[in-house]
């Protein structure tokens, strides 16, 4: 016999009596863990996008609604391709590269893929001459871009298309395919496939990005225009600015230059998500408060009831030689046991919910954050301790003469 056995035997005797308070803690911790995990990973996702795309601007058809940067070009609405030349000729400060795109859904290996026409940077070499017409390129003053360390400040290789957002060389009969396309079609670099009745050679397979680019097939823009009879149009023009500051200044300039287009930055695209993340962050604070109030009240109520129904037992234990400190520890440890079980199960449940809902609702991959779980468990135990302290103290101060009473 020891204190742990005493507590465990009593818990085993009437488990359902403790269910309510354990459940309250479990649900509170689960909600806290789930919301915080999703919020943290969503904030990281947004932060990553802002970091990697912060200097980028999208020029889209006016009526386009946009929720995801990576699928901005999937609208059926179009812009004239001549807008690319218009932007170049204007020689706006801070414009580094342009990437016009045209998308259409087609099939590869009987699976839907997004055939994306993209203009390789080699097509812009002649166009670069246009910028020399005004002799000096309109350099962005105060550019925060790190000093260039080579001929280019980006990776122009085909494999880097998804991250660099442009490709240097792409012939009319070449394609670059996403990771998912390569997987289900068993296509590799150097192999050929047929699209719209024409043969294309796979120039490269992109690494997996976790974005819609994994299901894209990239071909030369003019080839896609020809095959689809779309004409000289694009769905979107991505403008790569030299730095975030330049992008900020470019937006009004581009909007003025192209009044029939919508000009958005990644900040605007993710602004909704940023708002949602902020809201979720506030909600997690609210949930924590609920945890404290409801969970704490439940624990306090449960332990108080337990003390009341065990008054004679407490008196008897005192008569047998139990100190007030032991009585207090007995009830506190019992509360901690409830809190620990609730916290651990709640953390597990919260983690499962975060992994599932994070993927389905927020589009983020959630992995356990030990520090976050530790905080949630620690908070639950703290709440439990505080809530059980007064009832436990009351028990310790019970009159031992209760052992003689007929209760």
């Amino acid at each position, binding site marked *: 016999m020891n204190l742990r056995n005493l507590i465990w035997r009593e818990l085993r005797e009437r488990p359902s009596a403790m269910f309510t308070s354990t459940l309250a803690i479990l649900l509170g911790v689960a909600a806290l863990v789930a919301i915080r995990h999703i919020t943290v990973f969503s904030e990281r996702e947004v932060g990553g*996008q802002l970091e*990697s795309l912060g200097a980028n601007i999208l020029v889209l058809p006016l009526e386009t609604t946009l929720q995801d940067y990576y699928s901005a070009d999937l609208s059926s609405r179009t812009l004239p391709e001549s807008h690319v030349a218009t932007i170049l000729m204007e020689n706006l400060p801070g414009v580094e590269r342009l990437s016009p795109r045209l998308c259409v859904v087609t099939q590869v290996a009987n699976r839907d893929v997004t055939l994306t026409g993209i203009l390789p940077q080699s097509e812009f070499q002649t166009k670069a001459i246009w910028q020399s*017409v*005004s002799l000096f*390129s309109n350099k962005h003053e105060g550019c925060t871009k790190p000093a260039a*360390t080579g001929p280019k400040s*980006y990776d122009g290789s085909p494999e*880097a298309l998804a*991250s660099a957002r442009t490709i240097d060389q792409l012939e009319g009969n070449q394609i670059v395919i996403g990771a998912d396309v390569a997987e289900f079609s068993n296509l590799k670099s150097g192999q050929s496939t047929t699209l719209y009745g024409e043969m294309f050679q796979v120039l490269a397979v992109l690494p997996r990005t*976790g974005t819609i680019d994994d299901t894209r097939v990239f071909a030369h823009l003019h080839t896609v225009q020809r095959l689809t009879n779309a004409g000289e149009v694009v769905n979107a023009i991505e403008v790569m600015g030299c730095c975030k500051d330049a992008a900020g200044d470019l937006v009004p300039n581009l909007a003025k230059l192209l009044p029939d287009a919508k000009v958005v930055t990644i900040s605007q695209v993710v602004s909704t998500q940023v708002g949602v993340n902020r809201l979720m962050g506030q909600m997690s604070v609210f949930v924590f408060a609920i945890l404290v109030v409801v969970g704490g009240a439940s624990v306090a109520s449960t332990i108080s009831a337990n003390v009341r129904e065990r008054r004679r037992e407490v008196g008897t234990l005192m008569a047998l030689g139990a100190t007030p400190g032991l009585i207090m520890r007995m009830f506190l440890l019992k509360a901690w046991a409830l809190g620990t079980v609730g916290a651990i199960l709640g953390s597990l449940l919260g983690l499962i919910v975060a992994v599932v809902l994070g993927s389905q609702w927020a589009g983020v991959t959630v992995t356990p954050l030990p520090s976050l779980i530790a905080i949630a468990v620690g908070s639950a135990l703290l709440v439990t301790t505080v809530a059980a302290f007064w009832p436990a103290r009351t028990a310790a101060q019970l009159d031992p003469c209760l052992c003689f009473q007929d209760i």
Partner: protein
Amino acid sequence: MKTPLQSLSIATALVVLAHGIASAQAPVKPSRPQPTVNSEAVEHKYTFFVFYKQNDATTQAMAAALKGEVSKHQEVATTKFVQVDDPAQKALVAKYDVSRAPLPLTVAVAPNGAMTGMFPKKLPAEGIEGAFVTPTMMVTMKALQEGKLVLVTVGGSVPAPTPTAVTAFQADPHFSERLMTVSMEAADPQEAKFIAQMKIADTVLETQTVLLAPPGVLVGKFNATASKEVVAAALAKAGKCCEDPNCKHQPATQSATKAPATRR
């Protein structure tokens, strides 16, 4: 209406060009097709090519405006109209890569083949004056459009020998084929426009060297005693050295690949 001084400047420039510029190097075969002096351009005159798709109201408005502007510079400018869908004009359209440009588009071509102006949709309020450039600008723009580096020696009021860096670059086989050197005087009234664009005072005392890189990047301004290494370092820092990642003149190229945030 031009001033007499402006007309004299343009005429003088054309004469100078006709006899060659002393310090210019013989142009080498360009690495990629570039607009050059050829039969499309009229000899000794600026040619304003009007590329159009349809003879619609916008095209006619541009044509009318251009006609009025060119009439003020009859002795040095002329106009040519090019329908982009005309098979006979296919090569010209491809040369200036205007098939998918906003049309109508007026392209100003100097007598030496350098593009000196582009006016999409309509002429600007100031007209076509901006397309007329100084002699040194013309040569410089041509070289830049051919993908070359240009070292412009701007002489100050104090006479000085050729800057050290210029001589060194000319002697360096790594640069000699892709470099053009030109010289001019800061106080030359014909070059006032160029001097102003380079932000050099026309009363400067010392000789300066200005390094320009394609398509029109002002890499830096250096005094006459600047070494070749200093100038080369500035060129490498601007990422304009060359396409060779192993070039000794530039730091090790870092990968610019950035993976996008993983979703799902």
